[in-house]
């Protein structure tokens, strides 16, 4: 069966703060409801905790690490689920249950099967 990364774009906040307890509860409920198709995933700290890494001058060149992506957008990549679904229609149905779907957006993207 194909796998999909359900990539979550939502408000760029620290989900561990007490004020997001309700949001986390919703995500937990989704996690339980969709347990049959969830194969993995992660929630991420806000983008201000991120470090962008680039190597200048090709492989082996200078490592340039900069603070955050600092994109001026309302929605940021804040997590993802790995889903295993029969087809895109099922993936869309499951993705539509992720809280970010009504409070942001969820990108359902097929995962490459390297046949390992």
């Amino acid at each position, binding site marked *: 069966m*194909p796998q999909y990364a359900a990539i979550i774009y939502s408000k760029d906040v620290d989900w561990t703060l007490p004020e997001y307890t309700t949001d986390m509860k919703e995500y937990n409920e989704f996690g339980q409801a969709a347990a049959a198709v969830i194969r993995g995933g992660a929630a991420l700290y806000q983008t201000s905790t991120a470090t962008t890494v680039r190597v200048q001058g090709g492989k082996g060149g200078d490592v340039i690490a900069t603070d955050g992506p600092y994109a001026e957008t309302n929605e940021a990549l804040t997590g993802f689920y790995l889903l295993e679904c029969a087809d*895109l*229609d099922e993936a869309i149905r499951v993705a539509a249950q992720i809280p970010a779907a009504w409070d942001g957006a969820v990108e359902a*993207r097929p995962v490459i099967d390297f046949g390992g």
Partner: protein
Amino acid sequence: MTEAEARAALVRLVRDEGRRVLATLARVLGDLPLAEDAVQDAAVRALESWPRDGVPVEPRAWLTLTARRRAIDILRREAARAGKEAESVIEPDDPPTPETVRDDLLRLVFTCCHPALAVETQVALALRTLCGLSVAEVGAALLVPEATMAKRLTRARQKITKAAIPYTVPADHELPDRLRGVLAVVYLLFTTGYAPTGTPRPDLVDEAVRLTRLLRELMPGEPSVLGLLALELLQDSRRAARHRADGTPVLLADQDRGRWRRDLVEEGVLVVGEGLRRTPDVPDPYVVQAAIAACHALAPTWADTDWAAVVSWYDVLLTVADTPVARLNRGVAVGERDGPAAGLAAVDAVGELSGYPLWHAARAELLARLNRVDEADTAYRAALAIPQDDAQLTHLRRRRARLAGR
């Protein structure tokens, strides 16, 4: 039959049968792009060998067998390249029944019109896959360069495979939403064939009507399907009267109504009646357009048309589908109901159609009726300056010449 005609007939046969073979093979393989490759290959072989060896007694069976073999070849080659055993050997099954073929075709319709694909991609896929148009023809139909169209279709095929867009008819609760997209695609197919301002393609019109009838069987009582079917039947009833022998168009006002197909008019009126009865609180744009078409179909002459009803229906249409073309047509109807001055005011008020020859032509007709001959001539010249079909240009030149001869 000339050689060219024989060739064209053969191409039509291969396309028509090929799409049915494709629909079934896509289900059997569970892989639309693979099925497309296989059927494309079979079609090429048919066009090579049939002129030489004669058309087989059962062209569809021939195409099915050839496409199936080709698909197995492709699968084996891919398996060998990946160093794997070919997992699936496709067992030949009994020839599918007409009902199965029909269902397969519907699956194909819903896959091509899947909302995860951009609308323009859905339309392109339907034309390519359901109508068997070449990539260049799809590009021409949608006014997109061939190279752009080829890229778009390749991307679409990749997405169908990689994202596993299913090859199924949607569940009942999803059908109304999904149907809207399908109807838009089918109607575009119809208008591409009906070609209000170009060369008609009766094969596309027939295909669109056939697809619409299929959709009615799947969703009996669905007003938008009834509306679309009625609209298509009523428009198509005028097929024989819409053009002169030289291919130039004849305006609705000037058509020989004796050449309209009464059977299609009667069926269309019946179907639009059912569509109106089943319409929920919100009017359906197809039903309303069909109601307008029915006003014309039932009028003995242009002058005796119930213009008040036509204008009222356009007013309803504008509440659900406000387009410049609908406003233009309403303006023309106002001109018939209230006289050319009122019509001209309504047509001028549309104002967003200066690149649309029929807008200038409508103004020219109304100006001529107001004896503002110079302005009418200017409007005809503006219409003629816009690139368009030769037959349409000839038609406009004739109207302009008639004006000069007054």
